[in-house]
C-alpha cells in the first residue's frame, strides 16, 4: 500500500469562489444541474450524483446579532472507517492503495444502502446510471501523480493535497497560529486518527463548532450498532421460541 494521501480544507482561507466546485465538475465531466434557491448563496442544498464538491455558505448570527458566513468547501471525507464501504453488500466500494474510498461503477448494482449509511450525506444515487456515486478523490489523477482537481484549482490554497502525515502536521501548526490570532473556536475536524471514524482522509480546519458547518459533532460508524442490535434480536428470538414451545407442547398445556 502506498502512503496515505489526504486533502486538507482550511476554511479560514476559503473565499467562497467555488472554483473547486467547477473544477470538480469539469474534470469528472459531471453535468450541470438546475440551480435551486436554498435561502443562502449555497448551491446546491446537498451533495448530488453530479456534485462531488460543494461550497457551503452557512449563515450564522454573531454575538452582536449580525449575519456572518461560515464558508467551507465540503467533500467526501474518505473516512478511515467508512460507513458506505462497510455497508456495501456487493463489494463495489473499496479502499484504494492510497487510503481513499472509491465506488467501482462496474460492480455497484444500485441498492442505495451506502446512501443511507454515510454519516455526512455524501453518497448520492444516480438515477440515470442506476448506481451510487461520490467523490473519487480524482482517482485517475492520483494514479498519474496529480492531486485532485479541486485542490489544483483552489486560488487561496484553502484546499491542499498531500501525504496525510505531512498535511496533518501542517494543519496542527496552522490551528495554533489561528488561535494566537484570536480565533478561539479554531479547531481541526477529522485530523485525529484516534478520533471518530479513525480519522478522515479529507479533514478540515474549522473556525466554529462542526454543526456551524452542517457537520455532525460526533460522527459514528453505523456498523458499530450491528453487534448490539443483533444481540437484542437474539433475545427477542429466544422469547418467541420459548413462547411457542410452551404454546404447542403436547402435555400440560392450559387447553
Amino acid at each position, binding site marked *: 500500500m502506498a502512503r496515505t494521501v489526504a486533502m486538507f480544507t482550511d476554511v479560514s482561507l476559503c473565499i467562497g469562489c467555488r472554483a473547486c466546485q467547477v473544477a470538480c465538475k469539469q474534470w469528472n465531466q459531471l453535468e450541470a444541474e438546475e440551480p435551486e434557491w436554498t435561502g443562502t448563496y449555497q448551491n446546491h442544498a446537498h451533495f448530488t450524483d453530479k456534485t462531488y464538491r460543494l461550497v457551503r455558505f452557512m449563515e450564522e448570527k454573531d454575538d452582536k446579532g449580525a449575519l456572518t458566513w461560515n464558508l467551507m468547501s465540503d467533500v467526501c471525507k474518505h473516512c478511515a472507517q467508512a460507513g458506505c464501504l462497510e455497508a*456495501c453488500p*456487493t463489494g463495489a466500494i473499496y479502499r484504494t492503495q492510497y487510503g481513499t474510498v472509491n465506488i467501482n461503477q462496474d460492480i455497484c448494482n444500485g441498492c*442505495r444502502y451506502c446512501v443511507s449509511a*454515510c454519516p455526512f*450525506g455524501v453518497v448520492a444515487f444516480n438515477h440515470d446510471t442506476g448506481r451510487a456515486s461520490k467523490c473519487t478523490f480524482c482517482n485517475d489523477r492520483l494514479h498519474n501523480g496529480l492531486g485532485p482537481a479541486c485542490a489544483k484549482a483552489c486560488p487561496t490554497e484553502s484546499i491542499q493535497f498531500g501525504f496525510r502525515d505531512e498535511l496533518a502536521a501542517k494543519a496542527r501548526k496552522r490551528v495554533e497560529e489561528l488561535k494566537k490570532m484570536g480565533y478561539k473556536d479554531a479547531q481541526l475536524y477529522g485530523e485525529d486518527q484516534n478520533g471518530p471514524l479513525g480519522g478522515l482522509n479529507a479533514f478540515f480546519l474549522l473556525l466554529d463548532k462542526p454543526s456551524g458547518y452542517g457537520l455532525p459533532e460526533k460522527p459514528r460508524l*453505523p456498523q458499530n450498532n450491528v453487534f448490539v442490535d443483533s444481540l437484542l434480536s437474539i433475545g427477542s428470538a429466544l422469547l418467541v421460541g420459548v413462547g411457542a414451545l410452551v404454546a404447542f407442547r403436547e402435555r400440560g398445556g392450559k387447553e
Partner: protein
Amino acid sequence: MPLLQSADWPLLIDLYFFLAGLAGGAFVIATIAHLVGGPRSREVVRVGYYLSLLALIPCPLLLVVDLGIPSRFLHMLMVTKPDPTIGAAAINIGPFHIKLFSPMNMGAWALLGFGVLAFLAALSVFLEDAKRGRNLWALRTTVGVIGGFFGFFLAAYPGVLLGATARPLFQNASFLGALFLAVGASTGAAAIALILSFLGQEAGETLGRLRQIIIPVLLLQAATLALFLLRVGMSGGEGAAQSLALLLSGPYSLVFWVGAVAVGLIVPFALQVASRQPGLAAISAALILVGGFLVKYVIIAAGQAVLS
C-alpha cells in the same frame, strides 16, 4: 442538524420486509409445532410450511426490481473480480464475498439459504400429503431446525440493517431487529390462524394453541416497540428527537398511532384476550397482519423523511 441523505427505499422494500418476516415467523412456528406439538398441531405444520414458501416467492423479485441495475442482483453474493479491501470483516472465497458487518449482504445469503430450506420443508409436507414419503420426520426435523434459525434471521435482519445506517431514527434505535422479529412472529402466527379459520379444519383446538402464541408475541411486539421509542427518545443523538417527532406527532403520527398501534396492535390483542370465538379470532388475525405491515412501513417512512 447535519446534512444526511436517504436511500429512499420505496414500498416494495417495506413489502419485502413484511413478507420475509412473515415467512420466517411462520416457518419457526411450524417447526416448533412439528417438534413438540404432536398430531394435534399437524395442520399448523402443514399450513406454516406452505405459507412460508408462498410468502417467500415474491421476495427476491421485490428486491431485484428495486435495484438501480436489476441484472446485477448476483453482485450481492459474488463478483467475477473481487477486491480484497471491501471492509473490516469481509471474507472473500473465490468469487463469493461474505461481509459480516453488512446486514444487506448477510441478508442476501440468508434469503438464499432460507429459500432452499423453505422449499424442502414445503416439499416434505407435499410428499406426506401425497403419501409418497417415508421417514420424513428426520428430514423435516433437520430442515425445520436449521431453517428455523434462518427464519429468525430473515425476520430480524431488516431491523439490524436499518440500525446500521446514519438515519437518526434508525441509528439510535437498537431495538429495531428485536421489534421486526416480534412482528415477523406475530404476522406469521396470525397468517396461519387466518388460513386455518378459512379452512375450518379442527379450528377450535388448533386456533386455541395459536392464540396461546399470538398473545405473548403481541406483548413482545408492544414491548419492543415501546423500548424502541424510549431508546431513540433518550439517546440524545443528533436529529433523534426531531425524527422521533415526525413519527409520534408529525405527518406520520396518524398512521403510527391509529394504524400500527390502535388498529394493528391493541384491538387485535383485546380481541384475542376477550374472546375465543373463531370469527373474532380471524378478524384479530387480519388486523395483526395490517398492523405488522403498517408498523414497519411507518417507521421506515419516518426514518427516511427529510430532516431540516
